[in-house]
């Protein structure tokens, strides 16, 4: 009996140790970024491709107002309502006092400067795949944006999802170092995959999720229920969409579908972002979308 209790205790200690190890927030050390210099001009392209303004600027903002990253938009989900924080370079209310390493850790590892896990409403699962140089450039650009002194609001998330440490376990299961579309890709498809999977995070809305809110990569871009509760986010795999490469690329610039309907919903904001990219990038995203497998 004593022995059984001993074994149980040992297993419990081991289990707790494994839990701590697995859920340990990871961070990027400043030495890992030595030699990288941020270029704010390149960073602006990363900013638009990564869609930061869609969530962190005020809802329905346009023009230069999309560069004021005051936060405040609410995002309902099955786990509670998330509110985008202020990520303007204000040193008190935004991220102005963050070091480069803290910024890269936040964006690519989903860990705050205080060492807490962020919820994956912040799409670091995608940004994790980005080239570090791009995120260094993004930092350089974002530090040039206007400061805003709106305080960030707390998320409204219930038990047990309010235990941030558990997000570490979620990351262990669901943050991947691999792109979803695999295989021998043409150059434009590979560029489109990088833009779509690592930066623009299309799958965050266009793919269904499992019970723990992780993207079901076996139904990649095959559409999903709208988290706002109304209608569905469309299936954008090639046959379901039925658009040509130039149809897609043009839509991502001017917002008109092939039947000249205008993009609405969150996609209108995505188009505002992607309209800032060069034509080749929108054509690359289109080439990638046409290479994604159809639903079976």
């Amino acid at each position, binding site marked *: 009996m004593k022995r059984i209790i001993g074994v149980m205790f040992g297993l419990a200690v081991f289990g707790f140790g494994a839990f701590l190890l697995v859920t340990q927030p990871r961070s990027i050390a400043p030495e890992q970024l030595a030699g990288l210099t941020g270029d704010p001009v390149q960073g602006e392209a990363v900013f638009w491709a990564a869609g930061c303004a869609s969530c962190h600027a005020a809802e*329905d903002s*346009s023009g230069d107002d999309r560069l004021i990253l005051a936060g405040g938009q609410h995002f309902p989900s099955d786990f509670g309502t998330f509110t985008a924080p202020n990520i303007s370079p204000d040193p008190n209310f935004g991220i102005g006092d963050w070091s480069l390493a803290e910024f890269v850790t936040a964006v690519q590892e989903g860990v705050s400067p205080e060492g807490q896990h962020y919820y994956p409403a912040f799409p670091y699962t995608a940004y994790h795949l980005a080239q570090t140089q791009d995120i260094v450039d993004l930092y350089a650009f974002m530090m040039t944006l206007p400061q805003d002194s709106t305080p960030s609001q707390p998320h409204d998330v219930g038990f047990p999802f309010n235990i941030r440490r558990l997000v570490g376990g979620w990351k262990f299961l669901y943050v991947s170092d691999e792109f979803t579309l695999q295989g021998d890709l043409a150059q434009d498809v590979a560029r489109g995959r990088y833009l779509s999977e690592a930066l623009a995070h299309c799958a965050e809305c266009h793919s269904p999720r499992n019970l723990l809110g992780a993207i079901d990569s076996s139904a990649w871009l095959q559409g999903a229920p*709208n988290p706002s509760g*109304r*209608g*569905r*986010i*469309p299936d954008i795999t090639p046959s379901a969409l039925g658009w040509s490469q*130039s149809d897609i690329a*043009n839509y991502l610039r*001017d*917002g*008109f579908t092939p*039947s*000249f*309907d*205008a*993009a*609405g*919903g*969150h996609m*209108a904001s995505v*188009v505002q972002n992607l309209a800032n990219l060069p034509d080749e990038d929108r054509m690359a995203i289109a080439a990638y979308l046409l290479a994604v497998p159809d639903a079976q």
Partner: protein
Amino acid sequence: MTFSRKIACIALIGSLGFGAAASAQDVSAAVSARQGSMNILALNIGVLAGMARGNAEYDAETAQAAADNIATISMMDQRFYWPPGSDSDSFEGSRVLASAWEDFAGVAEKSAAFGAAAEGIQAAAGNGLEAMQAALGPLGASCGACHDDYRQPE
């Protein structure tokens, strides 16, 4: 309040759907009519966007004709388009959210933005490709702004 102002207010409130309940047939006719008006817009926007995208050669006279049509649609009095019971919850085939009937100020603001964008394209369409392209962006944005808030996603 003058008599004519009173009439205008009554018409406005009627157009918001607070008037007498419309029959199913009336609702169906109104939904078809407003969707038809969207289709007319799409056809004419297609002419302009085709040129803007470089799929068709810019022609000032053609562009002006399309822009004039868009401006004409934007000036129609829409009071008969929106009977009660024609929202997406109440009528099969309608994609207009019930919230459109609850947020008159928002609808009016977006409708005014569309009107201004339609005037903009009408003024610019005949003045060269670049002027037309520049005016097409705000027009599309004004369409999208309303779809964003009041149209049910597919």
